[in-house]
């Protein structure tokens, strides 16, 4: 029987400060073997710092980092079994694509024979469709090709964890969609453990097995994409996913909705807002404007002073200025401080 290599990452109570700024505050996080964890958060939430702490490019002020059960906190990057895809490609500009891909394998400590390196590089190049670019210098590539080389350089090795820092952010929309599928495939085929950072919710929803939402260095919530989307623990998490963003409306505008006593805000996703042309005088809102997206329309409805966005079929027959009734089908309730209030 072969011994499965456990590739589990554990961060225990990690805190990292840069001067007076707390980049990471008491972060505890586990990425299980074969998981694809996406860290989601706006700029400055500490996503990149988390990756750098795992890679060993930064050392934590407090806490421990464990890789495959081993405490690697004091170890330099080279001693840890990780690979890193940087946001800004960071290819070696004076080397060819081949040499860039071969670089991690040519570590003198590992002594991989050149024949084996060749096989591995060709394999990865084919996977990423850059086999015809191997002889090119890294600087002669387009942005998308460079990023694929950067990803390839991470894939030539089989580390316990792959770290990726917004690897798709500099690609155009079409290539980004392609690479999303590609990365997901790689994850499945290699059974790789991946810690991935992005502020793009589509990437998070489509690729992740788990999503962790960061806010100012704190891990707010972690769970499957479905859980994070359907069951957010506060308005911050709720706002991170969904496009258009979740509607947050004051509770008092919907006196008829049954809600827990502490609820101050009702959160409702666009697909959970039903609107109906008002037949009698009991209309609550008025259609302010309609965004045409091809297959669907986004309706912006004004209710008192707040706007609610909803999806609507093209042929619903609603036009700007119509008085409408609004029904919330799956409301979430939040307290005044933004925390979720559950009906019990």
């Amino acid at each position, binding site marked *: 029987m072969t011994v499965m290599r456990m590739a589990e990452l554990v961060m225990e109570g990690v805190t990292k400060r840069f001067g007076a700024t707390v980049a990471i505050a008491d972060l505890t996080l586990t990425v299980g073997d074969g998981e694809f964890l996406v860290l989601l958060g706006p700029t400055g939430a500490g996503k990149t710092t988390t990756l750098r702490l795992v*890679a060993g490019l930064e050392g934590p002020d407090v806490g421990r980092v464990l890789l495959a059960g081993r405490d690697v906190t004091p170890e330099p*990057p*080279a001693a840890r079994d990780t690979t*890193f895809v940087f946001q800004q490609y*960071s290819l*070696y500009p004076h080397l060819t694509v081949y040499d860039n891909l071969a670089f991690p394998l040519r*570590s*003198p*400590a590992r002594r991989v024979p050149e024949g084996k390196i060749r096989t591995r590089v060709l394999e990865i190049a084919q996977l990423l469709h850059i086999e015809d670019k191997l002889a090119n210098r890294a600087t002669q590539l387009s942005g998308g090709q460079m990023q694929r080389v950067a990803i390839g350089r991470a894939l030539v090795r089989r580390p316990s964890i792959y770290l990726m820092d917004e690897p798709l952010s500099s690609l155009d929309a079409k290539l980004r969609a392609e690479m999303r599928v590609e990365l997901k495939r790689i994850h499945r085929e290699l059974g790789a453990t991946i810690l991935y950072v992005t502020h793009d919710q589509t990437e998070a929803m489509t690729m992740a097995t788990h999503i962790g939402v960061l806010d100012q260095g704190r891990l707010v919530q972690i769970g499957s994409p479905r859980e994070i989307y359907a069951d957010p623990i506060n308005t911050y998490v709720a706002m991170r996913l969904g496009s258009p963003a979740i509607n947050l409306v004051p509770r008092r505008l919907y006196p008829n909705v049954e809600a827990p006593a502490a609820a101050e805000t009702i959160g409702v996703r666009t697909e959970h807002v039903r609107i109906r042309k008002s037949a009698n005088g009991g209309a609550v809102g008025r259609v302010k404007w309609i965004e045409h997206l091809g297959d669907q329309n986004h309706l912006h409805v004004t209710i008192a002073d707040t706007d609610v966005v909803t999806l609507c079929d093209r042929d619903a027959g609603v036009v700007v200025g119509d008085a409408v009734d609004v029904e919330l089908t799956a409301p979430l309730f939040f307290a005044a401080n933004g925390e979720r209030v559950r009906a019990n």
Partner: protein
Amino acid sequence: MMNALDPHAVLDKAVEATPAPLARRIRGLSDRAIAWLFIAPTIALLLAINIFPLLWTIRLSFTNFRANRPNATVAGVGIDNYVSVLTDPDVWAAMQATAHFLFWTILLQTMLGFTLAYLIDRRFRGHGFWTTVILIPMMLSPAVVGNFWAFLYQPQIGLFNYVVSFFSGIPPSSFEMIGSVKLAPWSIIIVDTWMWTPYVMLICLAGLRSIPNYIYEAAEVDRASRWRQFWSITLPMALPFIMLAVLFRGIENFKMFDMVNLLTSGGPGSTTELASITLKREAFEKWRTGYSSAFAIVLFVTVFGLANIYVKALNRVKNR
């Protein structure tokens, strides 16, 4: 007030301010003609100061003209001057001295300059202060440097001999840097290295600073040791800058004159007589103007040819 910033207003103003006849004349010109009008003064200066003397030198190099006898008849001598330059053992001795000087100054300055740049690039505490200190020699005039190193090299009172004797135990007056045939070539190499290593350091520093930090981070994650990072990233990426420094120093030192002339005047004998010093002797002490013109052209072609070959190599490295 905002009108002053409006480009149309500025143009209108310029049109108003131009005298009517001149404005008419300029308006009749094409863009190309106006462009030529603008660069004409520069071209005229260049022709007068660079191109004309060069052509005149080429002309003189085929004659027996002597600048101290302006009224003597000048006769064409064909390529005789070139033949005598290229067969003159003194010229070859000067070329050898120049080559020796070039080789060692470039080697020492590149190695020291790069090492210093590498150390300064670590940004230790006070690295800014040390950079300034290191740059001081470069800011001095070569004439000043030549003169005060003549004092430093004094066997009895000079600081250089004293320091050497302090560390090695050799009596300070037992050797003469400038006076001895064996040491004199090294005396000028030491001074030039002292003076110009900072310059090489600056260029190398620019090269090292141009390597983004994330490249090193990527290499660290890729498990490259410091040693490997140096050989496979730092050195190749800084190489175009190092080569540029070598080119600049090479061209500069090929025509080295002032410092060496003041320090050793080519002596003792002709051990430190670099090509430019020989040239000056032939031209302004022996007044063999035709001959020295031919010599100057030979030097020019040599340095131009070498520099061209070198620049080609540099471009290859840069485009790697």
